[in-house]
């Protein structure tokens, strides 16, 4: 009986130690996993940051190209350039005289601001 008791006494602390060790091990493993996850996330964040910067760069580049194209369009549409082309006759353009212009609307294209003498009263 006494032996059995002593065995029980001796096995209980062993089991406890074993259980504690297991728990500690799990905690350590968890800590390591969390640490790895943290580092992995961190690396991913940095990589994502690089990707975002790369896309930002591309966006900027496209914006710049768009501006450059707008500039080119404006240059091509410059009234003086078109007049020069007409003068050269390279595009078969002809400046129409007044009689060849057909107006689609009878309204004046004077703009949003009134011009008549009567309307001056409103400006005062």
């Amino acid at each position, binding site marked *: 009986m006494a032996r059995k008791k002593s065995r029980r006494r001796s096995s209980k602390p062993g089991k406890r130690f074993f259980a504690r060790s297991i728990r500690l091990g799990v905690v350590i493993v968890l800590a390591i996993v969390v640490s790895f996850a943290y580092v992995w996330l961190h690396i991913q964040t940095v990589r994502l940051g690089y990707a975002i910067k790369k896309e930002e760069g591309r966006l900027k580049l496209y914006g*710049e190209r768009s501006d450059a194209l707008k500039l080119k369009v404006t240059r091509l549409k410059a009234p*003086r350039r078109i007049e020069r082309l007409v003068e050269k006759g390279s595009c078969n353009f002809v400046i129409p005289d007044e009689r060849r212009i057909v107006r689609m609307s009878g309204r004046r294209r004077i703009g949003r601001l009134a011009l008549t*003498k009567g309307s001056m009263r409103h400006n005062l």
Partner: protein
Amino acid sequence: MSVAIYRGRTLFLCLAIFSLFLLLAFQLVCIQMMENPVLDDKAEGQHCVNMRVEAKRGRIFDCSKKVLAMSVPVKSVYADPKLVPEPALAAKKLSAVLGAGERALEERLRRKKRFVWLARKVDDETAARVDMLSLEGIYLTDEMKRFYPNAELLSHVLGFVGIDNDGLEGMELYADAFLRGKPGWRAIVRDGKRREILPFRSQDIPPVDGRDIILTIDAVIQNIAEVELDKAFREFNAKGGSCIVMRPGTGDILAMANVPPYNPNDVGASLMESRRNRAMTDMLEPGSTFKVITGAAALDRGAVVMDDVFFCENGAFRTHGRTLHDHHPYGNLSFLQVIQKSSNIGAAKVGMRLGEEGLHSYIRRFGFGEPTGIDLRGEAAGIVHPLNRWSKLSISRIPMGHEISVTPLQMICAVSAIANGGFLMKPRIIDGIVDSEGNVLRSFTPRVRRQVIGEESSRCMVEVMKAVVSDQGTARRAVLEGYTAAGKTGTAQKIEEDGRYSHRYFFGSFVGFAPADDPAIAVIVVLDEPRPVYYGGTVAAPVFRSVSQKVLSYLGVPQEVPDVELAEGAIAAGSRI
């Protein structure tokens, strides 16, 4: 080998390794504890950067949103002289690409600095060639360059910017505070490859892009004005010239052309003289165009009526010891004829009836002697002498446009007041300020400065000015097809260096509006020193005619068909039915 020796050697090795580790530990402690602040600062200096983020300069548009000025990124070349191993070789290679002096480049590359500019705002081809050289310590960076896609068009109004994109002239200078925007700041961390580590960005104040300016100028009308003015400028070998197209009812400037032109994309290639906006900076004696101001003032004050007749002394009028001449001798002329024939003696007599005080007061009310308040810098106020400085001759000379200096802009504002019923408008050149999304932040509405003359006086003066633009008037060459025009010619003598009136150099000018009874546009044309002919009616009136004809057609202003033609059309239409 005995065990003792073996043990001794092992012990020695262990001790050596231990000592090494101890040394390393000591070094580590030294680095971590003692040198930490210094190294920390050094690392921070290498990785952490406060970066300035430039704002994009705003664009300038015409009234139909055509781009007149915009900024586009271009490359600039810079160097870190400390990282350039062979400055002489690098300078030689760069000189061939950049076209700069080899010595000057080498001198820059030998400077004891970490940053020097080698070439700024180079074209894409040059930037690519520099990139291909792959020189150590030589880098390319982005900078914004201002472009004016229409080159010379409206250059005197737009102005230009400096190398650092600060407005230096014209609208670029006036609206610089709106256009330039506000730069932003970023506190960033960089990796070994100088790339930004985005998650570590600690401060990010984004830049505020410059506002866009929308002008009242119409690029098409501006082009018409510039082309026609340039034709006259070349034909008459003039020294310079100006042409303004304005809406009399609102004061909107539709075109402001000046010759000689210059290209704001290449300011360095132009003379300072050609960059002046003559339309508002140059003062000139208006000559006979001023007679309409005298006439309007006299009518409004009631000093004259339309039926009044003036004896024009058969061409020579002696007053206060001096003789005033007319170009042609006239006897009796009605008030309308005085202006129509541009009689100096008649105008002097109209002025005398009005009196010194009356004339001076109306001159000031018409806005002469003070800036018009246009939204541009450098406007001249003109010269109107105070009444106490008038000589006895002044009352006979000022009515015909002598002894007074005005700018073309002042003159067109005054004539617009006659055209629109008597209201002096503030000239409007900025229509609004918008952000990059097009939201209107500020709009500029037409502003009446004051009523100068009554509507009846205005109506009478329009009739007088209509008579000028007729076969009997001095402005036969300003007669339009399909529209009635009103206006006045002017030929003013310039002042010689000795202060006397020149008999060699003149200003030829014309100011008018059309359609006369419901004006859509007012136009002034001034040519400086035209040769060999110099009369306003010969050199400036044809420019008015061609500009007005084209602009009225472009604006879609219906032609004024005489009643007879309408009736004939109706009869013809009836007969067809």
